Every structure is written in C-alpha cells, then in structure tokens.
C-alpha cells in the first residue's frame, strides 16, 4: 500500500473517530505546548550565564554586609577595587556597576521615567558586550555627557530607535544634567544584567557591584581559594570579600541586589517538575487513548490481514498513524506557542523568543521528547498488537498485568492532578495572605518633595483631599517605606545589629494605614498630654522592652538609652505587627514619631485612591505638581502593589500552578472520558446480563464507578503525604505562612471525584438504558 493510500486510510480513520481524535490530539497539543514552554524556560534560565562571552572567566566580587538577622546585602566600595585588582596578577580587568533609582528624562517637555539606569566603568563592555543597534560605543566610553539607551527605552521616548544626537535633560537623584544619546543598544535575550540606559564614563565610586575577569588559562577554583585566603582589608575589616561565579550569583536570592537580575532556583525546580508532571499526564493520556482507540481498529487490521496485508504493512500503518498524530500536534503546539509566548513571558518574567526555542539549545531536547513521545507508543502499539485478535486484545487489555499497567497510568494521572491542584491551593493561600496584608496599601500613592524645591506639600494637601477619586490623604516625612536605622541589640554585641523602621508623621497616619492600636483608649488619653509622642509595634516591644512590662506611658530612652534620637520621646501606644516586606523577612521594629511635619525638610504626601480612579488622580497630581514645582520632574511611588512585588516568587508560582493545574485537570478529564467510554463498552455485555437479572440503574452506576472510587482513594493517599512533604519545607522558608489545611486536600478530591463520577454516570447511563437483548445479540 502506498503512503498516499495509507494517509487516506489514516485520515478517514481519524474522521470516523472524531471525538477520540480531537481529545487525543488536543491533549497532545496542550501537553507539548506546556512542556515546551516550561522546558525552554528552565533551559533558558539555567543557562543564562552561558551566553556571556568568556563568562566562565568572570567573577563577581561580593562583600556580605550583615544587616543582623533581618536582611543581607552585597556591596563593594568603589575606591577599593583598584587595590583588589593589583593584589592579584591573575585578574585581567575589572568593572564597577551601580544602579540609580528615581531616574527620569525630559524630552520635548514630556517626562519619562528610566528603569534600570546603570553607571559603570568604561570596561563594562569587556564583560557584558551589548549589541549597538545605532551609534558607536567609543563615544559613550569617553564623553561624560554621552548616554546609551536600550532600544525599547528609546522607542518609548522618541518613538523610534533613530535618535542619535538627541539631547535629554536627565534627573538622577534629584540632580538635573544634560545628556546626549550616542548609542542605542539591545539587551541580549538571556540577560543577567538587564539595562535600560547606560553611562560608561561616570565611574561608580559609590560602588555596588564589581566584576573581575581572569586571564585566560587561570584555574578558577585555585584563584577563588587564593582570593578567599588572602583576607583583603575592607572598611568592614578583613575577610569580608569573596567571589561568586555568574551562575552562583544569578541563583543567589539571599541578598538584596540592585544591579544583577536573580532567579529563584525554587521556581526553576518547580517549573521543571511541573513540566515533567504535565508531560507524564499527557503521555498517560495518549497511551490510554491510543490503546482505547485500537479496539476500534482491531477489526480493520484483521480485515487487512485477510486481504493480504503483511506484518510489515500493519506495522507501517500503525507507526505512521501515531507519528502523524504527534507530528501534527507538534506543529500546532509550535504555532500556538508563537501566539502565547508574550503571555508566558509576562507570567514568568522572562524574555523567551521563538528564535531561542528553535535554537540548537532547546530544539534538540524538544525533538528528543517528541521522538520518545511518538516512538515509544508507536513501537509498543504496533509491535505488540498487530498479531492479536480482537478477543485477545480484550484479554490483553483486561489481563492482570495490563490492567495493572492501565491502572497505573490512570492512577498516575489522578495523583498528578491531585498534587498539582493541592499545591496550587496551598500556594494560593500564601498569595491570599499577601493580598490580605496588601489591603492596607491598596490604592496608595506617595509623592515626595524636598523643602528647597518650592512650597511644602502641606501647603496644598488639603486641596488634594477634595479631588475626585481621592479617599484620604496624610503627611509624613519619608512615608512608611523609606527610612530605617540600625542599632545594637539587647546583647550589646556589635554583631547583634537590629534594624528599626523609622516613620515621622501626622497623627492621622495611623488611621490612613489602618494600624491597629492594642490599647486605643490609653493612646487617646495620653496623646494630647504628651509633647513628643511615639507609637511602636509589637516587635519593638519584644526586642527592647523587658518581658511583662507595659511600655505605654514610658520614655523610649528607658529601653534605648544610648540613642539620642529617642530622648524625650514617650510611647503612647503599641500597634499590632503588620507586614510590609516579603513574607520571607521578619517584621522589623517600628518607631512612629507622631509630629507635626509641616516644617520638615522633606515631606511625603500619601494619597489613597478609590478603585479604578488611579489614572484620574495621577493626572490631577501631575497637573498640580507642574504648577507648584515647574523645574522638577513629577515622580511618584505606587505603594499599592508593593507587597506583591516583594513576594514576586509566590505570585509567579501561583500563576504557573494555576495554569498548569488547570491544564492537568483538562488533560486528565478528557483522557478519563475516553477511558470510561472504552471500559463501559468492554462491559456492555456484563451490564446487559446484570440488567436482565434485575440490577437497577443505581447498582449499575455503582459497579461502573467503584473501580474509580478505589483509584481516586489510592491516588489521594499517595498525593497527600507527597504534597505535605514537598510543601511544608517550602512554606517553612517563609517567616510567615498560611498553614496547610484539610481544605487544601479535600477541595481537589471533591472536584476530581465529582468530575469522575459525573463522567462515569453520563456514559454509564447511556449504556444502562440500552436494550439488554440487543446488546447481548450484538456482543
């Protein structure tokens, strides 16, 4: 039989079994799509450092700056770098990079904020060669007023990347300086260092990140050991310096870092595991559907044998059918992938491109997966089943070992579904915790003004209170998030550093942020009678006040005598702890000084906006700003999403898992539908005989359902400890987490079991209603 005739036969076979074909093909498309995207993401991120030329010779210098138990950061003091480099002949070159925040440019009277503006040494390009789309890097390296803009940033400001020579007024840290665009560049797709704009001649004595490049042939491990043993002096003392490879640095999320991008290895591992699980579900589904569909085709294959078809002919036909199905699924999933890539990129905060997915780094893996997916079932099905008769096939499918195999496939699907569903719910609870905490920051916008810029905010804040869309306003010096100070803890040990959040604000600040006073009556009584009232939080009391003592009405200096800042300050209230950082970080002690801040050097206006009216209020704020401070760029901070941003990992995990759990459910239920249909068909005769002997509809439904009840129950027993064992350590790495509850397991069980029973009931009902005499005659 020619391939054309085979193709015709196969396609007609698909058409005749439209439902099976659509379900099998659909699950394959979804399975391949999900696995390809997540697989590409894992490969992309895991190899992010590999795309940097000579990346294996580049090390990042680190200096762990202790911030007590509360946080850690890495920082290299700029002027130290030449000294470090000169101490090691193995170092070829070095570069210092620092990031500036609150950067904006004015072009033709319009202001644009610049994200990720970097200042670096001119050697920066030896480490991270950025592709110049327009212009020459030389000018940026030598001219102090030259700036390089990333292509998308240039497009945003000028509407095109053709902007060489354009002048901009750039505001950095409040200083305005003129700059000229000399280069438009493009970030590499796999960027450890994502740059929005770059200045290469400014140097970065302030320090922040520092990279060194070793000479060719240097033994990396030996150098790192030598470096660690050298104990170079730093401002913090000896032995604080260390090195990290780019790979180590990328996956080190333990420190606060403004320069390099970091990726949580947990997300990568979970992404990889989820991809594997969905692949498993897709494979189980496909195998089950393949075996199921074969029953329909057994008769046809045997007729072909009667007509003279050889074993090779049958083998070729079955193999071609499977390969064609999977090949088409591959093509469709790639077409879909092209459309879904932007969504996936946004979800995962990554920049995957079709070019990357089709590159030598990813495509061979995907093709290998495809060959395995196509080859193994095709080989198994075509080799094993071609010689079986229909009754033997039924036996084959119903025999002990095969039945066990099918049960394992099906049970595996149930386990994966329950696991993904439960994990999703647990992570979702954690997200809910964040959202609940975030309620107090919802709709809040902060605007920051310094005294010498013009009239203070207090002069026009009452006007803002009456704008449309504004719910409430308050005034503080630097808001709730900007100021903190370190002091020595109770032990008196210099290493025992405790950081305190400092807020100086008006009294209505407490109500504005819904801060809950433990004894509000006492606070209300003390407040009018106190000259310098302060409110602290529960953590402050735990850290500094001896156990069992009520600090309300006491002087702060009684507990912190060495800090002049706290002199004459009286504690008038204690607020309950609330979170304003990542759930991984503990709540810091909070010190709120309730002052009249009308005459403060710096003022921050906090505005709470009604839902959906943010743009409108921002427009009014900008208009007012331009009227009051015409020489200053309008800059605001959106506090509303601050917690979600600080807990980005959890948000991302929830997004991935909600998507993949839904897909897994879809695949499982579609596969289940076909499998139940097949199983019921195999038992038609049995059902008819039972009916003849008096079985009721309910009894028949129960007989059909009970194997699935057992399947789901066993899957549940496997899934619960599995989820518990995996998720508890994950939750425990947070300082605060939503505990695992029964509902996290029961909801998936009820939904999964509900859908299963509904499927069995619908299919079983049809069979149970058939005329038993007809069924027996036919069977």
């Amino acid at each position, binding site marked *: 039989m020619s391939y054309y005739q085979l193709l015709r036969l196969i396609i007609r076979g698909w058409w005749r079994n439209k439902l099976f074909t659509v379900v099998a093909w659909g699950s394959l498309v979804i399975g391949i799509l999900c696995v390809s995207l997540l697989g590409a993401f894992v490969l992309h991120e895991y190899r992010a450092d590999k795309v940097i030329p000579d990346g294996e010779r580049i090390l990042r210098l680190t200096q762990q700056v202790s911030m007590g138990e509360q946080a850690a950061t890495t920082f290299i003091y700029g002027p130290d770098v030449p000294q470090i480099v000169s101490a090691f002949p193995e170092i070829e070159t070095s570069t210092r990079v620092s990031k500036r925040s609150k950067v904006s440019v004015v072009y033709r009277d319009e202001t644009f904020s610049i994200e990720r503006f970097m200042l670096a040494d001119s050697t920066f390009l030896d480490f991270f060669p950025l592709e110049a789309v327009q212009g020459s890097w030389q000018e940026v390296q030598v001219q102090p007023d030259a700036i390089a803009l990333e292509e998308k940033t240039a497009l945003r400001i000028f509407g095109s990347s053709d902007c060489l020579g354009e002048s901009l007024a750039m505001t950095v840290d409040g200083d305005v300086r003129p700059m000229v665009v000399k280069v438009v560049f493009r970030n590499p797709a796999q960027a450890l260092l994502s740059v929005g704009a770059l200045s290469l001649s400014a140097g970065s004595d302030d320090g922040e990140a520092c990279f060194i490049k070793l000479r060719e042939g240097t033994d990396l491990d030996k150098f790192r050991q030598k470096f660690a043993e050298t104990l170079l002096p730093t401002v913090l003392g000896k032995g604080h310096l260390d090195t990290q490879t780019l790979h180590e640095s990328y996956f080190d999320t333990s420190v606060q870092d403004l320069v390099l991008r970091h990726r949580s290895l947990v997300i990568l591992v979970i992404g990889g595991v989820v991809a594997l699980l969905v692949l498993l579900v897709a494979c189980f589904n496909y195998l089950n559907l393949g075996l199921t569909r074969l029953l329909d085709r057994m*008769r046809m294959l045997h*007729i072909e044998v009667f007509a003279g078809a050889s074993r090779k*002919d049958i083998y070729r036909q079955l193999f071609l059918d499977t390969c064609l199905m999977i090949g088409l699924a591959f093509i469709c999933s790639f077409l879909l992938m092209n459309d879904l890539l932007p969504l996936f990129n946004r979800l995962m905060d990554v920049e995957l491109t079709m070019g990357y997915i089709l590159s030598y780094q990813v495509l061979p893996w995907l093709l290998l997966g495809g060959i395995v997916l196509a080859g193994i079932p095709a080989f198994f099905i075509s080799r094993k089943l071609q010689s079986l008769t229909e009754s033997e096939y039924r036996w084959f499918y119903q025999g002990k070992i095969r039945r066990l195999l099918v049960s394992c496939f099906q049970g595996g699907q149930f386990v994966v579904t329950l696991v993904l569903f439960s994990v999703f719910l647990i992570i979702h609870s954690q997200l809910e915790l964040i959202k609940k905490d975030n309620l107090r920051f919802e709709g809040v916008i902060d605007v920051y003004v310094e005294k010498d810029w013009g009239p203070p905010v207090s002069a026009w804040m009452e006007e803002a209170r009456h704008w449309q869309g504004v719910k409430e306003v308050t005034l503080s010096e630097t808001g709730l998030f900007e100021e903190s100070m370190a002091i020595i803890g109770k032990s008196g040990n210099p290493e025992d550093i405790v950081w305190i959040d400092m807020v100086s604000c008006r009294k209505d600040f407490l109500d504005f942020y819904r801060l809950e006073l433990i004894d509000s009556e006492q606070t209300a009584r003390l407040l009018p009678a106190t000259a310098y009232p302060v409110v602290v939080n529960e953590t402050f009391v735990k850290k500094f006040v001896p156990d069992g003592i009520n600090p309300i009405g006491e002087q702060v200096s009684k507990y912190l005598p060495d800090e002049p800042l706290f002199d004459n300050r009286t504690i008038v209230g204690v607020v309950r702890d609330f979170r304003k950082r990542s759930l991984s970080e503990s709540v810091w002690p909070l010190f709120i000084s309730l002052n009249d801040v009308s005459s403060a050097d710096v003022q921050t206006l906090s505005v709470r906006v009604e839902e959906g009216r943010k743009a409108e209020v921002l427009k009014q704020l900008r208009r007012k700003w331009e009227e009051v401070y015409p020489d200053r760029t309008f800059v605001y901070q959106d506090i509303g999403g601050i917690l979600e941003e600080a807990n980005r990992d959890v948000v991302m995990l929830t997004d991935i898992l909600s998507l993949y759990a839904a897909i897994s459910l879809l695949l499982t239920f579609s596969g289940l539908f076909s499998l139940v249909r097949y199983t019921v068909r195999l038992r038609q005769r049995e059902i008819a005989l039972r009916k003849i002997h008096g079985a009721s509809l309910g009894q028949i439904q129960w007989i059909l359902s009970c194997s699935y009840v057992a399947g789901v129950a066993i899957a549940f027993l496997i899934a619960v400890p599995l989820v518990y064992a995996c998720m508890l350590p994950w939750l425990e790495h947070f300082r605060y987490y939503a505990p695992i509850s029964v509902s996290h397991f029961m909801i998936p069980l009820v939904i999964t079991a509900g859908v299963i029973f509904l499927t069995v009931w619908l299919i079983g009902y049809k069979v149970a209603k058939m005329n038993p005499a007809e069924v027996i005659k036919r069977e």
Partner: protein
Amino acid sequence: MIKTNNLQKVFRTDEVETWALNNVSIEVKEGEFVAIMGPSGCGKSTLLNILGLLDNPTGGEYYLNGKEVSKYTEAQRTSIRKGIIGFVFQSFNLIDELNVYENIELPLLYMGVPASERKRKVEEAMERMAIAHRSKHFPQQLSGGQQQRVAIARAVVSNPKMILADEPTGNLDSKNGKEVMSLLTDLNKEGTTIVMVTHSQHDAGYAGRIIRLFDGQVVTEVAL
C-alpha cells in the same frame, strides 16, 4: 487442491484443554464446491481459518496445491495467501473508512498490482457484482446484500483459486441470500474452488459435497 491429514487444533489455557479439531482428514479438489456443516462449536470456523492460512494447526498435515504448509510462519502464510485465497464472511468485514471501490481494491494493493491494472480489475469486479453504481459509497451507506456483494467482489478481484466463505448468507434475508449463493455458484462454474461453512441446509444444497463435523471430527461426507 486441499488435503489435510489428521489435522488437530487444541486451545490450551492453564486449566482447560479444548480440542477444536480432532484428526480431521479431508480433501478438496480444484473446482469443487464444498459445504462444511455442523452444530455451533464443532470446529467449522477453526477449520476454515486453518484452510485459509490464518492460523496454524497444532498437529497433522495440511497440503495446499501439493505443498505442506502447516508449519509455515506467519510471513510465509501471508505470501502464499495473497492472490490464491479469497475470504467472504457472515459479517461482511468491510473497512468502514474505505468506500466500495477502495475496499475491493485492497487485496490488489497488498499484492503490488500496478494502478492501471488495479483500476481495470476493480471495475470488472464491480460490474460483475452489479455494484458499480455504488463505487463511491461507504459500507454504512449500503444494504446488507450490497455489502456482501462488495465483500465477494473483494474476494474475487485478485482471481483467487479458492474462496473460503464463512456463513456468507447468515446476515442476509432470503432474497439477498439467494443472490449471494447464485454468485458463488457462478464463480464455481468459472473454475473457482469454494469451501463454505454454513448452518443452512438450503445453502449447502448449492454445493457439490457436504462435510459434516461434530466435536471437531468429520462424521460424514456426502456428495450431492
């Protein structure tokens, strides 16, 4: 054309041993029309499967055109079967995915017959069975009689020397059954050997000889 000596077929499971054929010795000469009769479970279809090289016997000898074929492998059986033996079944056994023309064409495809010759032979077979006007129809669009005519056309399209028919009228009404039997008789008159399994005494009357089986053994052979 066909000769069997002490043909045996035993189906064994762990606990039960069933003798489907117990020392069956028969002979069918070229051009003969033989009917095999017997009650259900007497081994008629098993015998037909072995004669049609779809299955191997457990013991005994089977000579087809003078060659002992009982020990042949599946591949050998397939190559001998092509073009020599045609099959007609009670349940027609047409492929639902193929139309009338394509169903009839199927044996020629596996024989590797060139396209132009295939077309000629298929059209001839359709004309002969009076189903040319249904060539583009699919099996489910045909009546039972028409389906069986297509099945016979498929069986004869490669001009086999022998046709094995397993209850060819079992699913047909008397009018269509009579038509099918007339077709088989005509084929036999043209020289095709026919071995037919049937329950119907009436259909067996078309044959030249009746072999009766009981419990896997030949009990009588009657020439008509």
